[in-house]
């Protein structure tokens, strides 16, 4: 991989909409994906992730709106393979073609360096299987081959639809580090997933999609800061502490007899209780798991 510095590319979705008959697959999606970080494109099954990415890549025609790379549609790019690398679910391979020959079909058509297929097979750990027919490949091997195809043109932008599918834990860790590395080189990396924990350690930015609509565009750290910290408190004086916390500007609520949750760091709760002589029997930091958060946020949108 060569270093990039200057070729930053920003992806912009603007009012992107797709209807399949009665199905609103994607509705008025507007968002920006910046270079230099990994952006996670999250949403439950059927949220419209794949449809959005296929529109971005010119494979599906939007009903309305646009998706562009630095202002240009995919089919307007002068050299798409060198500018954008893509891995999509349901991308196939001819079963009787070998792995390296699959990559060569792309390399020949895109006038790439004839050594590129061998190089990317090395990168994804498939060098030994280069001359094997893809028909005999496992799911994980196919996924790696798809990734190799995305990397073939050494592109500054990567668009990957559920790249971790079929990878073993080893492969997932490798992928995570690999994607972070690509982003650190200044590339734009957009990765879809329906499992938040999968991208938790990789992503910087998050696009949250549900029922075809963008729920949030934010950074993962912001999302964590917003929701992760809270306190779960057991005290015989729940009502009293609740009033004190609320007065101090921390949202809180009594959730059961002698039990209270507050949107405040435990240290604040403990100090406040001590200052007012309130006995606290148990005080734990409640971290809302990103998984729960994901479920909550995506459940809120009505279809």
């Amino acid at each position, binding site marked *: 991989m060569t270093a990039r510095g200057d070729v930053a590319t920003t992806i912009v979705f603007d009012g992107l909409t797709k209807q399949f008959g009665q199905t609103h697959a994607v509705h008025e999606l507007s968002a920006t994906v910046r270079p230099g970080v990994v952006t996670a494109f999250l949403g439950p099954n059927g949220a419209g992730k*794949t*449809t959005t990415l*296929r529109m971005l*890549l*010119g*494979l*599906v*025609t939007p009903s309305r709106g646009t998706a562009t790379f630095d202002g240009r549609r*995919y*089919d307007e*790019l002068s050299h*798409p*393979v060198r500018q954008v690398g*893509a891995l*999509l679910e*349901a*991308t*196939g*391979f*001819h*079963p*009787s*073609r*070998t792995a390296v*020959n*699959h990559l*060569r*079909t*792309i390399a*020949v*058509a*895109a*006038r790439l360096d004839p050594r590129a297929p061998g190089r990317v097979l090395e990168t994804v750990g498939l060098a030994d299987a280069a001359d094997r027919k893809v028909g005999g490949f496992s799911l994980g091997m196919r996924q790696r081959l798809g990734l190799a*195809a995305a990397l073939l043109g050494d592109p500054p932008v990567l668009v990957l639809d559920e790249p971790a599918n079929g990878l073993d834990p080893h492969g997932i860790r490798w992928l995570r580090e690999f994607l972070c590395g690509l982003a650190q080189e200044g590339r734009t990396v957009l990765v879809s997933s329906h499992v938040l924990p999968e991208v938790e350690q990789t992503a910087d930015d998050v696009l949250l999609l549900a029922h075809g609509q963008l729920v949030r565009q934010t950074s993962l750290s912001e999302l964590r800061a917003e929701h992760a910290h809270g306190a779960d408190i057991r005290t015989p004086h729940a009502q009293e502490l609740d009033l004190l916390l609320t007065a101090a500007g921390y949202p809180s609520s009594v959730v059961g007899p002698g039990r209270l949750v507050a949107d405040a760091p435990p240290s604040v709760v403990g100090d406040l209780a001590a200052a007012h002589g309130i006995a606290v029997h148990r005080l734990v930091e409640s971290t809302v798991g990103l998984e729960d958060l994901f479920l909550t946020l995506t459940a809120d949108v009505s279809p």
Partner: protein
Amino acid sequence: MTALIRAELFKLRTVQVTAWLLVATLTVVVAGGPRPRARRSSRHRARPAAGSALLAVAVASASAGEIIVMIMGILAMSQELRFGTATSTFLVTPRRGRVVGAKLAALTIAGLVFALVSMVVAVPLSVVLIRAEGGTIIWDGQVADVLVAAVLVMMLYGLLGIAIGALVRNQIAAIAGSLTWVFIIEGALAGLLPDAARWSPAGATGAALQIGTWTGNQDMLTPWWLGLLVLAGWTVLIAVVGTRSALQRDLT
């Protein structure tokens, strides 16, 4: 564009089915070919050919591989959808019309190769068989015309295959449909509506190969190159309709 054509030829070379199709073509040439026989239409009953036409007849019969080249064309198009390679193909070349154009060019070249290989086997084999039966070989203009027509017919059928593959999305439907057309509907058409059958793809093919001269079929289009033109017309028609729909479809 040359890069795209090279890529399409490379795709043909790197799948096993292409080799099998070549084997099938040669089998057709050797097994069914150099003996004058009825082609497709049940109405065309073979009769002993007149002296000078003997070699032409043999060569024409040997070029039955065009159906196989057509299947190669259908596969070149429909396997992309069946195996999902269409996604990578269109990612490399988002302007889909160029992909279809490259496939048409590649099948022209592949059709030429298949035709030349067929002729290299068919012509000497015909000569040997005719000699063995005590016939006289006469090289005349008709033989030359049939040779040229046989090569062009094979190339056109490759294009026809691409056109059908673009029009009919489903691979099985495309192959089964076109074989049904060639072997069943064309036969029925020739029997029921000979005037229309002259202009059908198979009728035009027969005319191009001058099959009428040995089947005694007077209904064939003349001259022989009119048959080629009509066949080309069919190809263009199906290609235009098929390509237009293939270009606009969402690939999900």
